[in-house]
């Protein structure tokens, strides 16, 4: 069972059922080491949600409470670019950050073409991710 399905994980990250009426940082990604690393990097923020499904992630990205969307990892059911495009169509001005492997320039360019605000390579740029998210939430 994913941490989000249980309500909250060991980092205090809240799941679907605990979404508050504050602007949320939505992390999308399957249950993987990278997604967990991203969640850990964002643990300083109190309003991070990790939706349990892509439908839920899109619904949250389309809501008025959405502060930014971080696509942390491959999404099993859907290619990242399509998910990105759908999210962008829902909210034209929503900051969307895509995490990629270092040096995957082609993936980064593709993500930018499909509506990403920025692409961040991880590792090593956890600080850059936090900076981008902070700026987006201001």
């Amino acid at each position, binding site marked *: 069972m994913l941490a989000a399905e249980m309500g909250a994980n060991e980092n205090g990250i809240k799941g679907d059922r605990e979404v508050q009426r504050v602007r949320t940082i939505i992390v999308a990604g399957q249950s993987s080491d990278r997604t967990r690393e991203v969640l850990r990097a964002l643990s300083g923020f109190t309003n991070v949600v990790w939706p349990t499904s892509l439908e839920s992630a899109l619904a949250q990205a389309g809501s008025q409470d959405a502060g930014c969307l971080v696509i942390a990892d491959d999404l099993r059911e859907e290619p990242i670019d399509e998910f990105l495009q759908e999210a962008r169509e829902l909210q034209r001005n929503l900051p969307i950050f895509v995490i*990629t492997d*270092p*040096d*995957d*320039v*082609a993936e*980064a*360019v593709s993500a*930018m*073409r499909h509506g990403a605000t*920025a*692409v*961040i*390579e991880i590792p090593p740029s956890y600080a850059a991710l936090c900076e981008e998210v902070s700026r987006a939430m201001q």
Partner: protein
Amino acid sequence: MKDLPQTVFVVDDDDAVRDSLRMLLKSAGVHAETCASAQEFLTSYDASQPGCLVLDVRMPGMSGLEMQHELNLRGLTMPVIFITGHGDIPMAVEAMQHGAFDFLQKPFRDQELLDRVQRALVRDMDNRARLRHTDRIRERLASLSPREREVLDLVTQGKANKMVAGDLGVSQRTVEIHRAHVMQKMEAGSLAELVRMMMAVAPSP
């Protein structure tokens, strides 16, 4: 006026790259011109010339990214395809954030570049058609009298003639006459078409 042919401008300081790209584009039936530096291109470029740019990122003097910045400052909307042998993600992201059409790492397959060039040329054609359309709307707007412009603004906000008359302190008949002039000068067949025209020239949010 006869349309100018689309041209692919290749800007790269490497002679061999310029020559091979020119040959490749020529073999695909695409007209290409080459420049050895950003400065050379910026000095000779005519904004009315349709086409796209294939631009090296790293060049002595002005880099490709600096040239893109300069093009943006000049309001030139020609699609830019960056090519580089030393690209990284921050560089690619910066180029795309500033409006690059694409960013390609060397070595690339010939067909890969040709496909992207074709897409960029289509994009440029669409951009220019859109610009011509909005220019025509602006010309028509400029032909309206101040009163006609006021009527236009109010009716495209959804106000009925009676409300427009009240807002402007004139009779409903006068509004009807102004409105007929507006429709004629704007060459609009319906209020919906008029609204679409105004949306096309409205500043982006």
